[in-house]
């Protein structure tokens, strides 16, 4: 095996998805490639007839032969793939054993290249296609490069093309697309650094490219639209599986109109128990569960060993949205896009989660900190965008503060918790706000003397 990892690739700090900071990539033919690429050709949809065209196109690439390998993944749903005469020098066929993954992931797993270039066997590439993708991968190690195939005459794919073209036009080729850039990844060709593909969890059997794009974004990826990498699609484009995407991609909010839970939650709320009283923990968890956002989970981290532990566990024994953990995992789990840390004893209103996530999206924030109180130190809640945290982890040099990097690439902000409806559990709660009800009642004090005084003062 060659030492792909030895190649040096810079790690520039790209704000949001604005890869314009990288400058213009070199013109094809005017630079010297150094990174090996593994092209993974999937024959999943039985394109045995068009495979020779795909391989011939790969054999005619301007990218240097010694840096190019081709892995054909035989889906095994027909007679074994036989390689035609005209193929790139280093081409192999893998045929996963029955019962194992037959997806491009099987190819990516054996790929040696620094970059994995995903193709289907119904794509024909023009000669500078791979080079046009690869010139970007030499500029930064966390880019996902997307190019759009043209459709062979007579093939139906123009509707989706038009949508994507408009999106590229309105976002300066995704540079201005911000955290939503990933949903431009609707299919192949797409090229991804192998390490980033592994970090994202790799390919899933469903074969939904948007879902892969979503997980790549969570891993910290920046998405580049490359218009000069040309290819022709001879097959029929697959329609996305919307119910699968609804379960797996929480940020596609339009697919989640029902008020229920989904496989991958939108927000993972973490309540660290520490030495807090059981009633404070319960107040916070109850507040979170009452959120208008339904697709959330609450992680109760590190329950105490005393009598309070039993009380907390029993209170939520039947609640599937409450999870107990020994300690809060360092990273957000299960592809969750947002994580919200809330200290026990502080209760968010039903609107809090929805409105802070919307605010963080509007401002493309990586971290939103909410100051709640000041005692010895500042007590605060914190909303983290997984994509921003993982981008920061990717970029951080030893000793660097992750939040500084989040600020450089996405943005951080401090606000007051009360602005967003977080109140102390001990504070008097406003009575259920029925429309038309006067809010004065919420301020009533238990102490009769003070109640009288407050009345006098508010009248003056």
């Amino acid at each position, binding site marked *: 095996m060659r030492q792909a990892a030895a190649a040096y690739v810079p790690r520039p700090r790209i704000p949001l998805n604005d890869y314009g900071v990288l400058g213009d990539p070199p013109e094809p033919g005017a630079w010297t490639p150094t990174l090996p690429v593994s092209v993974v050709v999937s024959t999943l949809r039985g394109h045995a007839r068009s495979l020779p065209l795909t391989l011939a196109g790969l054999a005619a690439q301007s990218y240097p032969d010694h840096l190019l390998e081709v892995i054909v993944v035989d889906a095994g749903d027909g007679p074994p793939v036989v390689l035609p005469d005209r193929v790139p020098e280093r081409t192999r066929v893998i045929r996963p054993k029955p019962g194992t993954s037959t997806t491009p992931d099987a190819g990516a797993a054996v790929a040696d290249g620094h970059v994995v270039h995903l193709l289907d066997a119904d794509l024909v590439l023009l000669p500078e296609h791979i080079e046009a993708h690869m010139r970007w991968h030499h500029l930064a190690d966390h880019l996902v490069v997307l190019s759009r195939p043209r459709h062979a005459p007579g093939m139906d794919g123009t509707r989706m093309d038009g949508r994507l073209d408009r999106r590229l036009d309105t976002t300066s080729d995704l540079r201005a697309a911000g955290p939503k850039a990933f949903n431009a990844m609707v299919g192949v060709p797409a090229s991804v650094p192998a390490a980033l593909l592994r970090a994202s969890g790799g390919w899933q059997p469903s074969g939904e490219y948007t879902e892969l794009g979503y997980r790549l974004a969570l891993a910290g990826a920046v998405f580049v639209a490359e218009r000069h990498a040309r290819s022709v699609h001879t097959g029929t484009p697959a329609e996305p599986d919307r119910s699968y995407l609804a379960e797996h991609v929480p940020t596609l909010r339009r697919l989640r109109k029902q008020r229920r839970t989904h496989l991958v939650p939108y927000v993972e709320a973490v309540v660290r128990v520490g030495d807090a009283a059981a009633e404070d923990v319960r107040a916070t968890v109850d507040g979170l569960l009452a959120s208008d956002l339904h697709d959330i989970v609450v992680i109760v981290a590190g329950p105490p060993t005393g009598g309070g532990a039993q009380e907390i566990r029993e209170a939520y024994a039947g609640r599937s949205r409450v999870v107990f953990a020994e300690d809060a995992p360092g990273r957000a789990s299960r592809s969750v896009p947002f994580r919200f840390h809330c200290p026990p004893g502080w209760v968010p209103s039903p609107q809090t989660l929805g409105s802070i996530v919307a605010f963080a999206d509007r401002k493309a924030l990586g971290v939103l*900190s909410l*100051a*709640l*109180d*000041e*005692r*010895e*130190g*500042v007590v*605060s809640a914190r909303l983290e965008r997984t994509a921003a945290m993982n981008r920061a982890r990717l970029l951080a040099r030893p000793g660097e*503060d992750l939040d*500084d990097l989040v*600020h450089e690439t996405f943005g*951080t*902000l*401090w*606000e*007051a*918790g*009360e*602005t967003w409806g977080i109140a102390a559990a001990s504070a008097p709660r406003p009575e259920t706000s029925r429309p038309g009800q006067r809010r004065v009642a919420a301020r009533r004090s238990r102490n009769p003397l003070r109640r009288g005084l407050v009345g006098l003062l508010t009248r003056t």
Partner: protein
Amino acid sequence: MPVIARPDAARDAALGPELAEAVAAVGEEDLASDLRREETAIRLRRIALRTHGAVARWRAIAASAGLPVPPEPMVSVLLCTRRPEMIPFAIQQMERQREVRLELIVGLHGLPAGSVPATSLPVTVVEAPGGLPFGALLNRMAAAASGTFLAKVDDDDWYGPDHLADLLLAQLYSGADLVGSAPEFVYLEPIDVTIRRRVGTERFAPFVAGGTMLITRAMFDAVGGFRPIPRTVDGQLLEAVQAAGGRIYRTHGFNYVLRRRNAREHTWRPPVQSFLTSYEEQWRGLVFNALMEDAPAYGRQK
């Protein structure tokens, strides 16, 4: 739409070379944001007032006629501290004050003599036991001062190099008995964030930042100085000036950054979150506007 001046010989002759040059140097990027626009405005009016203000004009006319001009007014800076580690930082910021004649009155509140480092400024040191109320010590310091104006500064806030000069200008054009800056910029040390608050400036108003008060000697004596109490001496002085019929003027806050320390080091009210309920702009870390001109960053957390 920003209005950018085009070259105009007649106008430039009337403005004078310094102001003409400054006006010509303003580009669209200097007006791109509210912050930049105000920085630019303050720079320009500073030059205009120093060149074309009534006092400046009379002095220029007298000088050109060969007549003697009176000395510039003296500002006595009252710097009172309990923290020896802050003294060099505070003195450094007074050393870089420009276009002003000043003397420094350092009050050592329960500190040993000899805590004051050597400086090019004229210094008077007043020592007092830690038990003496803050207001009483300030009065002792004022008694040792010889200036026409008394300026109170705090040992841990940041001051731009034109802080005192701009206060003097504001005093000239407002005629107020006490002038001060708006506490527009605040560094929230516990969370390492700098905010800009929306505070109305360039107006007569009852409140100014305590660490920026500049008062005429006459008004100071008229109200009997500071109240000899341990706390709230700033607010009490402002109230006393108003009660005595004096006028208070609040000028811009671009020469001043208030340091909001950690609660455990200081009995601070209001709490830090209340600064976040209404702010105009926010920056991560300790961030200065351009008029602060690389203030020493002493004490930033990291």
